[in-house]
């Protein structure tokens, strides 16, 4: 299948060792990454983890009722990508987008108020967990119809190209969304029009309960980039440093008119498709993998590497966790006491109140 065709080297079809949880467990390579940056990224990863654990706990208590798709275990792609987003860029997410929102600078309070359906939420309580917006931080929307934001982000890239200010679009999607026809339509479109866009496929090997081997003939998404003339990189999606580096390379190409780019971030989610449970009794081929995959923890691997490099002490690490939990707790207290949208919101937000 793979061999003589130079377009197909390296192997765009198979994840290889990246799909094996017994590999890629060692501390990550820091390279020449700036220590301040590393501390910032570690802080972001931990903030996201703490927020998601809190949301999971409140889902378990039924304080939160709306469906929440938790990102625990796969925080790194969002943090690595956010590092290279500038004002004027437009980022779009999907159903599992809390990390995308927070990594770009979205506030804990806006997120928690939104999942509670409060008027103070990032979407004024009209969206819940699956419809997040924070245009101030370049996050232009996330929706749960699978693959729906892929062409929308592509259109944002068309607008960016028309604007000519060097802006780009980013489209986050999962491996399941690559089974939608619109993913292929969008890659083809972006390639034909040489649009400045980065597609970030977070391949966590599962769509809902089904392992990728039961849904696709090959486990790597990169083959679709090859067939559409889109530049691609496959990255250990639990390695924040590698994610940031790959994003920088891809975005530089896209910004300079080099056409669309795709990053496949190979990762794994620790909780079920939706809700707080691990659901390791639900997923086909999931029970075997989860405990092993937890050993490829993006936070532990970064922290250990930083300790070895003497950038981080155990005390500092503990205080980052404590500060993050406290910040989440404070944001939660404020969000639970916030008001719900007024009754007029039911009808007043359907159309523009003034059409011009």
């Amino acid at each position, binding site marked *: 299948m793979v061999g003589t065709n130079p377009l197909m080297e390296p192997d765009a079809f198979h994840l290889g060792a990246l799909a094996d949880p017994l590999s890629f467990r060692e501390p990550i390579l820091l390279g020449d990454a700036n220590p301040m940056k590393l501390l910032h990224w570690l802080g972001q990863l931990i903030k996201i983890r703490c927020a998601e654990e809190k949301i999971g706990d409140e889902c378990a208590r039924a304080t939160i009722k709306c469906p929440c798709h938790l990102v625990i275990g796969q925080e790194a792609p969002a943090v690595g990508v956010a590092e290279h987003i500038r004002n004027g860029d437009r980022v779009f997410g999907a159903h599992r987008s809390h990390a995308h929102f927070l990594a770009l600078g979205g506030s804990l309070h806006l997120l928690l108020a939104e999942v509670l359906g409060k008027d103070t939420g990032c979407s004024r309580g009209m969206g819940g967990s699956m419809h997040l917006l924070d245009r101030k931080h370049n996050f*232009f929307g996330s929706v749960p119809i699978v693959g729906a934001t892929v*062409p929308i982000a592509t259109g*944002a890239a068309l607008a960016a190209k028309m604007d000519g200010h060097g802006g780009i679009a980013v489209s986050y999607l999962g491996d399941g969304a690559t089974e939608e026809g619109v993913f292929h339509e969008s890659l*083809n479109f972006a390639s034909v029009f040489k649009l400045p866009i980065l597609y970030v496929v977070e391949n966590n090997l599962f769509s809902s309960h089904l392992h990728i081997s039961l849904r696709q003939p090959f486990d790597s998404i990169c083959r679709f980039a090859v067939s559409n003339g889109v530049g691609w990189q496959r990255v250990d999606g639990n390695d924040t440093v590698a994610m940031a580096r790959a994003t920088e390379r891809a975005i530089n190409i896209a910004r300079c008119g080099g056409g669309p780019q795709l990053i496949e971030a190979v990762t794994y989610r620790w909780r079920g498709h939706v809700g707080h449970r691990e659901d390791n009794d639900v997923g086909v081929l999931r029970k075997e993998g989860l405990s092993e995959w937890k050993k490829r923890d993006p936070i532990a691997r970064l922290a250990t590497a930083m300790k070895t490099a003497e950038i981080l002490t155990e005390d500092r690490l503990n205080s980052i966790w404590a500060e993050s939990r406290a910040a989440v707790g404070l944001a939660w207290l404020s969000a639970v006491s916030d008001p719900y949208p007024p009754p007029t919101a039911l009808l007043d937000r359907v159309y523009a109140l003034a059409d011009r």
Partner: protein
Amino acid sequence: MTTTYGQAIRDGFAFLLKNYPETFAIGQGLWSPWYVGSSMTDLDKEFGKDRVIDTPVSELATTGVAVGAALSGRRPIVVHPRVDFFLLGVDQLVNQAAKWRYMFGGDVDVPVVVRAIINRGGEQGAQHSQALHSWFAHVPGLRVVMPSTVADARDLLVASALGKDPVLFIDDRWLYDLEALLPPIDPTLRLIDVEPRIEVFGSDLTLVACSYSTQLCRLAAEDLKKNGIGAEVIDLRIINPLERSVLIESVRRTGRLLAVDGDWSTCGLASEVIASVVEKLPPSALKVAPRRLTLPDAPAPTSRPLEKAYYFQKEDVVAAAMQLLGEK
């Protein structure tokens, strides 16, 4: 000099492309001389192929690209040369464009126009002939515009493109040769100020329609007038959100209602028109039970005699009106 309906649409596009740099047109066939009749001829040559974009055969991505561009400060008009093929792109209009304002708190403008064309007759059959406007009129957040006059074809297109909400603009190629003298374009017209219009005044019965069906009603009203019958013709113009007061007041005066619609009956626009009126008027205000004239509940046939039987004509509107007047 008069303008045709097809030319009026082209004039609307030219006005937008010339005066509003954030507008652009995108869709299949826009660089072809025949895909969309006379309605976009040579716009690509006049305004450039980066403002009038022909696309790959990807209805869903193209519609989504337009939605994304609209969320990013542009005012795209997506052109689908047939409603039937647009069905492949519906998610982006119904699930996305129509709901983004609401789902994100009310302040997100989605100024995208999807222009879909009804292109039927000519033995084209079931997948080249549909209108389906009632489906779309069902969706909150989506404005559905159905022009029946030359002026509306141009002016409602311009108003659709300059507003803040997503619009489905449906024009019918059976209207393209209609002619009229047009005044200059008024760019301040807003869709929210556009109401159903009484095209012909009459006191014996009310005919309510949109798009090509309104044209048939106008012609039928002329015939009825020759027989001494005063038919009032109301053109809906925008079928969602539907402004109902003009219809209700007309039927209050005439006591008789015939809803005419070039689409299917079940859960259709004609049903909505009748429900809107009977909900608001006391039974005593109606001299006879309201009636619908619609397509038969079947896909469009290809064979010539079947096709002839399928589409109602002016004479059928006249006959339905006469029948209504004959009933006690």
